[in-house]
């Protein structure tokens, strides 16, 4: 495996857009308790600047003298006190909504916050929150709002993302956990994981696992990964007092909220593994009623408060096309950074086939047929079916490989349970010369660790041109 200094492809212009020098800006007045909702496509940019009053973007307050640029974003700027915004650029759609769910979300925050206060006083564990709901019901938005408010209240809460559709401080298909002590970024989703230089936004230090599939209901590694993650988070919270008091907030996938005939196996698994004690159900009445029934009357067990919150009117169904673009943007920003100012320089490398130990995640359906009855918890130890060793081929071209902390000869369940150091992108596979061109986030060796390859996120063509 040689790194070829000459073959430096970092110049890939990741951001094809040239921001038109926001020629025409307009003023948008917002009355108190209203929000400005907007959708911006990936090719365009919308700038928002707060002129007076206060405003917040998913709970994070806009700085009075900052101009925020949004690309490929569906978001909203809410104001408690009324504000005046200066808006530049073009939005796909934009309108002012007077009916928002912010009151109930802020109530949710203060309800959780009082538990944090209690935890600070008594020393017991802080609140464990899980947000569930169907797709596009505003789960991630709620988690962001709750996180932002908690950070603003001087807490250091832990955010846990168990939704593979969108990454949190990482690429899609990953699960991550991170304690927030600094503000949640406005422009760049959750902010940025550490980079080698200074970052204008305080970086967050996530723990990342690779899930590698789109649907948590498929395959057999969701539960073990949740268990593993819960273990790590619980261990951290044992010692980390600031985070312990503040507790954690888990974002989940909409797919686990569908359930099978009223049984929500994965939700229950998350609740029991993380010792969740507050369950916010967004939108779905049925889910709420099923979960209330399940958790309302369990004598002798830790009580779980099930609370329904209304879905915000601002939640829009995000098309698969948009989601795909969003995922690609996330992956791009992992390697190249977000926006124009924080451009990162990944490094291009060549590697021999033999240097790469790639394990492909077996899809769930196949395994079920192979190993009938070997599902659920039994699958933990019998891990033969988790991975298949994959020889590099054009199949893996344009895909992401997760660099695990496990060695190549580790048992499959060890590989499965190991966290991720980062991702490399397979730019090209030369089957004749048995060479692979890789894009690595940083120069130096690609570690000889086990690399995991899953069907999700899908291929990202032309990440390196």
């Amino acid at each position, binding site marked *: 495996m040689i*790194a070829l200094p000459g073959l430096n492809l970092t110049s890939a212009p990741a951001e094809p857009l040239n921001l038109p020098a926001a020629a025409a800006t307009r003023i948008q007045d917002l009355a108190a308790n209203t929000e400005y909702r907007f959708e911006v496509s990936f090719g365009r940019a919308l700038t928002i600047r707060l002129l007076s009053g206060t405003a917040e973007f998913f709970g994070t307050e806009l*700085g009075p003298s*900052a101009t925020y640029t949004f690309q490929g974003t569906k978001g909203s700027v809410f104001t408690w006190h009324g504000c005046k915004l200066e808006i530049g650029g073009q939005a796909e759609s934009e309108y002012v909504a007077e009916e928002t769910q912010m009151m109930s979300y802020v*109530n949710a925050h203060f309800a959780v916050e009082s538990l944090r206060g209690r935890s600070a006083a008594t020393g017991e564990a802080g609140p464990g929150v899980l947000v569930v709901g169907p797709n596009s019901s505003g789960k991630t938005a709620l988690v962001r709002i709750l996180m932002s408010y908690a950070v603003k209240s001087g807490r250091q809460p832990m955010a846990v993302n168990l939704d593979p559709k969108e990454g949190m401080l990482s690429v899609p298909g990953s699960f991550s956990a991170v304690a927030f*002590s600094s503000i949640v970024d406005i422009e760049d989703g959750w902010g940025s994981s*550490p980079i080698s230089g200074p970052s*204008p936004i305080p970086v967050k230090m996530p723990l*990342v696992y690779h899930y590698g599939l789109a649907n948590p209901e498929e395959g057999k590694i969701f539960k073990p990964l949740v268990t593993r993650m819960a273990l790590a988070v619980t261990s951290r919270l044992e010692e*980390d007092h600031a985070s312990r008091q503040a507790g954690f907030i888990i974002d989940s996938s909409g797919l686990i909220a569908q359930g099978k005939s009223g049984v929500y196996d994965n939700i229950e698994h998350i609740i029991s593994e993380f010792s969740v004690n507050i369950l916010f159900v967004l939108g779905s009445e049925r889910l709420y009623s099923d979960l209330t029934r399940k958790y309302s009357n369990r004598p002798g067990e830790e009580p779980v408060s099930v609370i329904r919150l209304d879905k915000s009117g601002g939640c829009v169904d995000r098309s698969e096309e948009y989601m795909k673009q969003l995922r690609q943007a996330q992956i791009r920003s992992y390697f190249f950074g977000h926006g124009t100012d*924080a451009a990162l320089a990944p490094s291009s490398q060549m590697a021999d086939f033999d240097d790469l130990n790639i394990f492909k995640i077996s899809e769930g359906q196949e395994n079920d047929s192979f190993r009938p009855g070997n599902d659920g918890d039994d699958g933990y130890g019998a891990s033969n079916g988790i991975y298949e060793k994959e020889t590099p081929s054009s199949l893996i071209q344009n895909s992401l490989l997760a660099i695990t902390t496990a060695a190549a000869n580790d048992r499959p369940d060890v590989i499965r349970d190991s966290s991720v150091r980062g991702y490399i992108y397979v730019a090209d596979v030369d089957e004749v010369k048995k060479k692979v061109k890789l894009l690595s986030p940083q120069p130096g060796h690609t570690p000889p660790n086990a690399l995991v390859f899953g069907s999700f996120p899908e291929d990202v063509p032309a990440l390196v041109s």
Partner: protein
Amino acid sequence: MSLPSVEVAADFKDALQDLKQNNRPEISNLTIIAKENTEHAQAISVELENHIRTTRPEWKLPALYVLDSIVKNVGTPYTVYLGRNLYRTFMDAYTLMDQGTRKAMEGLLRTWKQPVPESMEARPVFSPDVTRDIENALNKYSKLAMQHGLPARPVSNPAWRNTPTPPQNITRYAAPNDPRVRQPFPPTQQYGHFPATPPTQYPSMQPYPQPVSSSHLEDLKAEVAKLIATTQNAFASNLADVSLRTKLQALLDLQKILNTQTLPPQQLEAVRKQVQALAPSTPYPNFVPSVPIQPPQQPLPMFPPAGAPVNIAQLLANAGIPAPPSSTPVAPTPSLADMLRRVSSPAQPSSTPTPNLPFFLPGFSAPPAIPTSVPAAVPASAPAQTGTPTANLAQLLSQFGKPIAAPALVTAPQQPNSLPQLLAQSPSAPTIGSADWLINALKGVPASTTPSSSTPFPSASMARQLSAPINIQAEVELTTASMKKPRLHLISKLYEAIPNICATCGRRFENTPEGKQKKARHMDWHFKVKDPDAAKRGVHRSWYISEKEWIDYREVDETSPEQTSNGAIGSSAAVKKQAKDKYVPVPQDPTLLHAPCPICQEKFDPRWLVEANDFVWMDATKVGGKIYHATCWEEYSKGAGIPTPSTPDSVLGKRKAEVSTPASAKKVRAY
């Protein structure tokens, strides 16, 4: 915004109900509500007055602060509406407060006599007519308190406090170093004979004439004093415990009885037994040395004034939950009441000057002329719960009232006019001085005026109150229905409570010295990371940290004082500069830039170094126009006998032994 007054007032009232401590955001929020609804000022004022009148005594002061904040920040029309009844609002509350709170209230009153600070307005907050009446009333009280010989200021050590009635001339167990304690003995004796430490004090007291079984009495008093001290300690560590508070109160009262009344020897003996039963661990002759000395930092008001009948129900509810953290049992309030009934009913009202207490003024400091009147002849409730002895003690105590008649005690005749009036507000107020009144008053004691709990209240700053809330009230219940209730007043916790906003990123900081420091560091950080050249230097994404590192990792806020950066490792810990801490700036020369270390053939990792304010190669050293890994070079040069340039004292040669401090957000190697 044309809500009817009723609705606005109801909202305001709801918000007021939540105000249970001196909480600045809540107070400012209430002020804002008042400010935004001046058209409903009358309704709001009435609501506020009602709240101050009816809420529990310990919540009155915060409510008064709301009043204060409104009149100062909003002014008219609130000053008009609130001014009308200010006398009553103020004095009603004043009479129910303990000394510390009263002091705080007097402070408030003082500011009301002056114009609002930093305002253009030259007139005082409230018109002098309003404040003058209150002042006069307060002066009357202070006079009264003087006549009754009530102590002026909290005595730092109630365990040694003494309040004898001169005719009995009982030796007191006095704090020798507390000049405020009234002494019937000549001061020279007091200070000449008594050593400064309590333990030795006791024997030296023996020679003094004792009317009745003095040694027993002294023993008993000391025993009680010790119990008080223990209870105080327990209470100090658990201020919220109402039962402890009650117990402490009862013990203090018992001490008073012992100090002021002459009891028949057999009664004393019986009481002594009871008290000893409470503290069986200490043998009777040796108790004195074991008396814990009160830490000076918890000054306790000496005479807790009586509370008002209004609060009895609440107090009972509180006191009814005995949760004694200490070994000594606690009397439930009802038995205290029973005992009180027995004690006080046969006694002349004049012997129990409790009614005076509400008028006792903390600011008053002249030594009392007639040290006769003791606030309350109250039995100790503490022993009452020990089980079998309960009845005995109760009986004993019931006799306390009889033998005493403190001469020439003046109470009822000298009541200021407002007292009857005040009491009349409470529908069930019994006749002053009657047993029931006393009982009620005493029942009011635990919650409104505990010695210990009162001290932090006026003295603690708002910030302290905020940072160390003892009782966190769940303001928002965790139910689906509760989520929909609008609670706009809470929003201020996210905005007004943290007013100091960073213009760059919108992060907010508290308006406290600490908050300002944090903001300063935060701004420094903004400055530090603003590097226009960063993009040109090949910054790259770092690897994520491993599970183990993550579990041990602690977030480092950019506002925390120890800005742990990469450089901190070298500067703080290593006096000896280690090879791996050496660095060279990333060279501009392209050949050098791409050249690996000539020894190990590995490339260098550029990385941002805060110290150097530049991108550097760590663990690198430049020798003869080439850049080597410092550790490689060191190993090599040691073998070859070539002196290492610049820093010769490095010996640790473990190559690439990176110190991964979890705090530093630096690159972590994947292998």
